[in-house]
């Protein structure tokens, strides 16, 4: 029986009258109803059949001892080599945000501009300029060929290796921390983990005690199973994002695929042409073994290691000091017809029939 690697919960929630599905729907009040969760430890049972894509499995817990900067260098090197061996350019999705700017920096500090101009195309929207105008003016506009991000659904044609900035959020923590800091203050975020404190925050968004407890239980159980100790409140939000959202993030770009390119969506194509920059075991291990990066009292300090690396390169103090993470993918995903899911044979599922994918053995009965 097939299961799903990726699903849009709204596609299920809007079309199912089942009581457990409607209970489960409340869960998505926490992070938005279009983001499917998948527990990478496979403990949490939702009313939809799902499985873990092998590339999204959690890595073995052995510290790589790489610094964050070294991880970036190594990844840039890997992708440069991949471009060389395949003879295909790297299409870097640049929004002007911290994650994608650091990707550009990782290449720019390692290779000559002349080399990179032959190797890199920048997938960009008109909005990208406004997010990082200095970097745009000094590095992007004068040096690189543009590919309009409006073309994203047709970029899965194999003509380039798509490089995204996905997963840096999962490495550093979660957007949920921003709201937590706004509501409770940064000191509270860095205080010892207390289930009751987290519950109050979570339940304010989910608004159902039973469902909130189900989720917190799931996050705690997954942590124990994998061997994570949630020492601080920030660890809870990080672990939730790291463990439960990873696979959804891995696949969400495919939701955009143009129908005529569906046949390209397969593991072999994916292993070459879809490269999420921060999706490697060594980045994940860096994140696991550096909980101190999640101890922040001010949202401006979120992703500080990344901001430091960018600053060392471009010396843009204003960006370093004041840049805060903001969502950018909505410009790519907005007002489009998206796939509802991708199944475990990597086959696109344009429209999910909830009954076809229903999992009766779930935590919401």
């Amino acid at each position, binding site marked *: 029986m097939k299961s799903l690697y990726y699903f*849009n919960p*709204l596609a299920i929630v*809007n079309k199912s009258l089942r009581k457990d599905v409607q209970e489960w729907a409340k869960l998505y009040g926490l992070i*938005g*109803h*279009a*983001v499917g969760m998948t527990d990478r430890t496979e403990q949490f049972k939702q009313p939809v059949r799902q499985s873990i894509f092998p590339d999204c499995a959690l890595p073995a817990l052995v510290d790589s001892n790489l610094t964050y900067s070294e991880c970036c260098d190594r990844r840039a090197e890997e992708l440069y080599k991949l471009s060389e061996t395949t003879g295909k350019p790297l299409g870097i999705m640049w929004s002007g945000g911290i994650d994608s700017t650091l990707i550009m920096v990782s290449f720019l500090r390692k290779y000559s501009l002349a080399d990179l101009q032959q190797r890199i195309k920048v997938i*960009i*929207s*008109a909005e990208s*300029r406004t997010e990082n105008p200095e970097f745009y003016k000094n590095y992007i*506009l*004068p040096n690189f060929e*543009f590919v*309009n*991000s*409006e073309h994203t659904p047709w970029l899965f044609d194999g003509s380039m290796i798509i490089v995204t900035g996905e997963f840096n959020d999962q490495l550093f923590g979660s957007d949920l921390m921003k709201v937590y800091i706004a509501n409770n203050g940064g000191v509270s975020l860095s205080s010892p983990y207390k289930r009751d404190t987290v519950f109050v925050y979570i339940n304010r968004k989910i608004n159902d005690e039973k469902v909130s407890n189900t989720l917190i239980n799931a996050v705690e159980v997954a942590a124990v199973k994998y061997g994570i100790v949630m020492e601080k409140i920030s660890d809870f939000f990080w672990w939730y994002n790291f463990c439960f959202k990873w696979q959804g993030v891995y696949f*969400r770009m495919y939701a955009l695929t143009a129908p005529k390119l569906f046949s390209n969506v397969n593991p072999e194509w994916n292993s070459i042409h879809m490269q999420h920059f921060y999706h490697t075991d060594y980045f994940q291990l860096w994140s696991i073994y550096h909980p101190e990066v999640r101890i922040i009292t001010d949202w401006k300090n979120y992703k500080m290691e990344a901001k430091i690396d960018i600053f060392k390169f471009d010396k843009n103090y204003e960006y370093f000091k004041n840049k805060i993470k903001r969502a950018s*993918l*909505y410009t790519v*995903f*907005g*007002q*489009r*017809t*998206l796939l509802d899911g991708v199944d475990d044979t990597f086959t696109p599922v344009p429209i999910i029939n909830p009954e076809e994918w229903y999992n009766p053995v779930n935590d919401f009965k």
Partner: protein
Amino acid sequence: MIETRYLIASLENTSVYLMTPSVITANALVSGSGDSIIKVFTAYNSADYGKITRNMFTEKVYSIDQKGGNTFVEMPDEHVSSSWKETRSILLTRQHLFGRWESFTKQALARQTRHQWAEFDFVAMEQIKESDPASNTYTWMLEEYARIVDMPVDRAYKELKLRLESDLMTKFRIQALAEKWKDKINQVTMQQQVEDVRREMAREFWQNSSI
């Protein structure tokens, strides 16, 4: 601009089903109802313009006396057929959804509404098409644009092209989405269908991008 009210009336006897202040909603409604036409009312073409309220056409039934200066004549209940009432009920249900639909579309288009002079994009796109960066050939208008914005012309070309293509492609697909949901709303005949349509429309306009 003259303040205007759009009345959706029966083609058969000019009895008024409903009033909307939006010509876009008016057109969307008549595109789904073969018996309907749009009647445009202003203070200059109707002596009764000042009497028009949103509810007046749901409380009573009026026909339009065109020879009498576009005034309203109340129709006795016995002259109003049940099928007419059913059509009005359906159109009112759809009108509510079209209010959402129009708001969603406007909100989606807001990011691309940048100039006082809406034709700018088309004129600029012409300049882009007539230029050729490979041979370093740019139109004189583009060269002047680059001088004013203080940028080398090849960069101005690149940046303007990106912005224009982004905006036009975004507007194009927003319009496609609007067309799709206009047709779906025009298939609604019962109040019970409203919530399903509203929810799916909200999903496709907004929620899918809340990732």
